[in-house]
C-alpha cells in the first residue's frame, strides 16, 4: 500500500533526526558536573536538555506514523548501534571543551538553517517541532558564537586548541549536507529539507564567525560519512552502552 510505505519513509526520516538529537544530547549531558565553571556547566546541560526534548518529539512522531506499537522509549533504548541512523558528527566523544565548542560551531548554524527549512514541511508535526526547535538553536548559536570569539581571539593556547579541535571535526561536516535516497524521496513529497541547498548559507555563517575569531577555515582534505546507513564510528557502541544500560538491565523500568 503506497500510503503505508510513505508513512514508513516519514518514520525513517524522523528516526534519523531523533537519533541525531539523542546522541548529541547525550554527549552534551556528559558535561554535567564537568563544565569549566558552574555557569557553563549549566549552559551545556540546558542545551543537552533541548536536544533530548527534540529526540523525544522526533522519535514519538516516528513511532506514531510507523504504527507498529513501538514508542519513543523502545526506539531510544532497544535498538542496537547498526540500527541507529544518526550522522557521525553527533556521536563523536565530547572531548575537551574546545572540541565540544568546535562541534557546536558546525552544528548550531546547520540547525538554524535546517529548522528554518523544515518549518515549511508538509508534515505538520515535523513543521511544528521545527518551529519550536529553531528558537532554541538560534539561542545555542549565540552561545557558541561568543565562545568561538573568546577561544579564537583569546590566548595563544586557546587559539591553538580551538583550531586543532575544528580540524579534527571538520571532515564530519559534509555528511550534514548529504542527500540520501530517503531525503530525495521526501523532498519530492514536500516533507524533507533540501540539505545541499543549505550549504552556501552555512558556509557564510561559518566564514563570518571564523574571521571574527581570527581563525583559519580548515581545508577540505578528508571526509567521513555513513551514519544514515547505520555505519558508525566505534564511539556509538560505547555511548549506547551507557545510554541504554538501565532499560536493558530492567526493561520497562519507570521512575
Amino acid at each position: 500500500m503506497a500510503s503505508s510505505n510513505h508513512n514508513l519513509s516519514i518514520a525513517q526520516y524522523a528516526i534519523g533526526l531523533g537519533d541525531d538529537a539523542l546522541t548529541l544530547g547525550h554527549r552534551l549531558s556528559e558535561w554535567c558536573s564537568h563544565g569549566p565553571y558552574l555557569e557553563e556547566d549549566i549552559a551545556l546541560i540546558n542545551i543537552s536538555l533541548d536536544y533530548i526534548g527534540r529526540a523525544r518529539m522526533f522519535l514519538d512522531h516516528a513511532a506514531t506514523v510507523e504504527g507498529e506499537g513501538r514508542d519513543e522509549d523502545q526506539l531510544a533504548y532497544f535498538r542496537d548501534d547498526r540500527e541507529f541512523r544518526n550522522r557521525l558528527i553527533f556521536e563523536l566523544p565530547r572531548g575537551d571543551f574546545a572540541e565540544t565548542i568546535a562541534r557546536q560551531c558546525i552544528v548550531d548554524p546547520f540547525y538554524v538553517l535546517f529548522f528554518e527549512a523544515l518549518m515549511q514541511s508538509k508534515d505538520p508535526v515535523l513543521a511544528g517541532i521545527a518551529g519550536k526547535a529553531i528558537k532554541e538553536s538560534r539561542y545555542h548559536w549565540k552561545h557558541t558564537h561568543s565562545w568561538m570569539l573568546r577561544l579564537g581571539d583569546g590566548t595563544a593556547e586557546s587559539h591553538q586548541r580551538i583550531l586543532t579541535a575544528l580540524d579534527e571535526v571538520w571532515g564530519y561536516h559534509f555528511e550534514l549536507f548529504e542527500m540520501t535516497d530517503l531525503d530525495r524521496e521526501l523532498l519530492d513529497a514536500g516533507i524533507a529539507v533540501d540539505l545541499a541547498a543549505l550549504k552556501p548559507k552555512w558556509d557564510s555563517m561559518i566564514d563570518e564567525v571564523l574571521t571574527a575569531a581570527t581563525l583559519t577555515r580548515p581545508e577540505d582534505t578528508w571526509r567521513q560519512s555513513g551514519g544514515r546507513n547505520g555505519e558508525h564510528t566505534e564511539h556509538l557502541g560505547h555511548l549506547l552502552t551507557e545510554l541504554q544500560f538501565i532499560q536493558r538491565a530492567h526493561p520497562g523500568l519507570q521512575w
Partner: protein
Amino acid sequence: MVAIQTRAEIQALLDQVFDPEIPVLTVTDLGVIRGVDIQPGLIRITLTPTYSGCPAMNTIEQDIRAILASTGCAVEIDTVYAPAWSSDWISDAGREKMRDYGIAPPEKDTHSKKVLMGADPTIECPHCQSTQTKLISEFGSTACKAMYHCDDCLQPFDYFKCI
C-alpha cells in the same frame, strides 16, 4: 450522569495548577494551555511545551489530570508544538508575579526584537528596579532562565528568557 462543567469552573481549577519550577505562576499565566474543550463527561486540554526538553511539562500534565479528576469527567490532554510557545504569551499578571518572586520577566514582543541575535536587551533588576545590570550567563537554573547581576544592589537574579 455527570454534570457538564462550566468553563469558569474548569478555569478556576486550572488556576490552581502551578509551574513546578516557578511556583507563583499558574499554567494559565505561563500561556501553555492553548485550548479547553468541554463536552458532557469529557474535558479536553490542549497543551504546548515551553521548551522541547522542559522536565516540568510532565509534572504539569499530571497535575492537570489530578485536579480535573475532581470533576468526575474523563480528561484528555493533547500536546501540540505549533504554533511554538512564545514568552509573549505570559500574562501581564504572570509578569507581575514573576517580578515579585525575584525573576525579571521577559521583554515583550519577540518579533520586533533583535534579542535573539542582536544586542542584549536592558533588563531591569527585580529587586531594586535598577537598569545597571549585566548578563552573567545565557543559561540559568532552568531551561527558561538566564543569569544576571545587578550593579546597584549587587544581587544576582534570574531573567526569564525572551523566546
